[in-house]
């Protein structure tokens, strides 16, 4: 439990936190992340409108007060998608109580094959709090474009697989894009940077 460094972060971050309350939250302030990429100056992913597995319309504003972490993938992905979702679940645990504010969102790039039922079962196998979103092909393409996410179908035999961007995008609780986490990072590294986002907003 020594890695639940939320207390330490809280204590050490008190000063930073008050500073953050004054200076942060406007989306323009730069953050220094140890491992991830600072995306504070990027305007991305603000206008997506998709459906959750219950059929409810979801937008970035639906997650106000939470810290959304968005990852694009597909359930037939054998490697990077389950590994990244497993890492997200682990990072959430490492963050302790602060992890309760982390909302992991999986957006399918394969809405033709990923049904809402399958998506729901899939993401909840990693953590019951995880959400999956889907749209039509057009909505999916528009959302990916908004995030600068590349994806393309790769034919293989009589079926297909997908190549796609594997970055996890993190917003602060006011809906400002903050952090990009690459797949090369560990759960602990992600947790540290996620707590930095939290300190600010």
């Amino acid at each position, binding site marked *: 439990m020594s*890695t639940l460094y939320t207390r330490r972060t809280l204590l050490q971050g008190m000063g930073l936190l008050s500073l953050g309350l004054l200076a942060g939250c406007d989306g323009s302030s730069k953050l220094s992340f140890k491992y991830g990429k600072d995306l504070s100056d990027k305007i991305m992913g603000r206008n997506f409108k998709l459906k959750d597995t219950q059929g409810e319309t979801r937008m970035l504003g639906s997650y106000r007060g939470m810290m959304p972490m968005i990852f694009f993938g597909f*359930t*037939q992905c*054998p*490697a*990077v998608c*389950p*590994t990244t*979702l*497993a*890492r997200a*679940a*682990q990072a959430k645990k*490492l963050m302790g109580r602060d992890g309760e504010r982390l909302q992991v969102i999986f957006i399918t790039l394969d809405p033709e*094959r990923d*049904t809402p*039922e*399958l998506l729901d*079962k*899939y993401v909840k*196998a*990693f953590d019951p709090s995880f959400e999956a979103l889907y749209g039509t092909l057009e909505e999916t393409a528009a959302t990916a474009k908004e995030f600068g996410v*590349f994806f393309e179908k*790769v034919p*293989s*035999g*009589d*079926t297909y*697989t*997908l*190549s*796609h*961007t*594997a*970055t996890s995008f993190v917003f602060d609780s006011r809906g400002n894009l903050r952090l*990009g986490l*690459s*797949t*090369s990072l*560990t*759960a*602990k590294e992600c947790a540290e940077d996620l707590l930095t986002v939290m300190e600010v907003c």
Partner: protein
Amino acid sequence: MNAPLAKNRFAQRCKQLALGLSLIGMSWQVLAQTQIEDAWVRATVAGQPSSGAFMTLTASEDSKLLSVQSPVAKTVQIHQSSMQDDVMKMQQVQSVALPAGKPVSFDPHGYHIMLMNLTAQIKEGDKVPLTLTVENAKGEKETIQVEAVAKALDTMDHSKMTHDHSKMN
């Protein structure tokens, strides 16, 4: 009278020795195969039509993996994923080179075996039979059976798991 008998016995011993040596040679041949270690399959949720199989293959002589078959999947393909600028690229490959004595790992970061059009859900703990066909430089084919254990859907790959575990304790 005794000399020819002794000669005969000597000849017999020689034959036995030769037979023994050839047997050892044959068993060496049997050992000179492709070894498979740590074979596992990622479990699926109900309705998920595909999954991946992972393992480490070591061939004793220069060979290549040609194909894989499994009763749990209607289609089995060998895929290669690679990461460039955080974009995961995926492609099907026709074969994978297995250089003599060099372990080639099939893991979530490189080559992996795609089990597609699954006939049923793969549950954690299931034993999934796989048949691998390997061909050596002379064109001789070898088929290897292996039972891959199904690990939880949220299993992280080996290296990272040990990494994180060491940090978690």
